[in-house]
């Protein structure tokens, strides 16, 4: 997975692509932790191009959510595809995490709307 973060109004947008699975979850987690170490505190996990997530992928999302909750940061998961949404729902993540249907809605929820 090629994970290149972009910045918008002080929000770090992480566009996940393809598959977030046991094979690349560790790399994705490292990429997030690196950004956190750089002082980033507002994140949109943009899943527009993510086709598939497994429990190893959910682990990355949960680690990020816990870290940001502890540091009073913010995180919104946006644009979940069909399989990703179903896995979130099955896991109860749709009720414990902030979810947005679009990137715009995510920016609004995080308080950085245009």
């Amino acid at each position, binding site marked *: 997975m090629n994970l290149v973060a972009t910045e918008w109004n002080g929000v770090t947008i992480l566009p996940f692509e393809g*598959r977030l*699975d*046991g*094979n690349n979850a560790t790399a994705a987690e490292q990429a997030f932790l690196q950004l956190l170490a750089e002082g980033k505190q507002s994140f949109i996990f943009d899943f527009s191009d993510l*086709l*598939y997530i*497994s*429990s*190893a992928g*959910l*682990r990355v999302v*949960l*680690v990020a*959510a*816990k870290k940001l*909750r502890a540091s009073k940061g913010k995180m919104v998961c946006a644009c979940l595809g*069909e*399989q990703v949404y179903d*896995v979130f729902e*099955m*896991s*109860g993540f749709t009720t*414990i*995490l902030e979810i947005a249907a679009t990137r715009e809605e995510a920016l609004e929820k995080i308080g950085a709307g245009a």
Partner: protein
Amino acid sequence: MLKDRQYPIDREIKLFNRMDELERLNERLEEIGSDVGWTARAVLDLSLACEELVVNIVNYGFPSGGEHCIDVTIHASPSSVEVKIEDGGIPFNPLLDSDADALLALELEDRPIGGLGIFFVKRLMDDIHYEYTGGLNRFRMRKQFRPNESHDEQLQAGGNE
């Protein structure tokens, strides 16, 4: 044989106990899905169930390390699949290992990291069976796809602008 008619495709996928083998597992499942006519979504669901089991074996099956084989056998028909996963690692019944229902009610702060993999397998697959015989962990699961899961939704998707 009747069995052959029920599952016209019969493929073996031999994996090593490494995470990067998930890529090959997925490619092979996509291949089978396209040969037998599953929807993209059915392939993803099957891929999830298989990944969770294989990841468990990779992580916990061989605590003393080394390269070992995980044998995945897929019996596939357009409307159903049977998956067998066998490994020679330490005896481990993944079905005894999950009480995920209790986790689901927890708030974010209290959620443990992990514990969902086998829960997904149970939710997605039917007729799940585990036994340890002949020095092997033998896991078997089946799935009967709903009728609309065995049609080709991609044809419809291709019709969009």
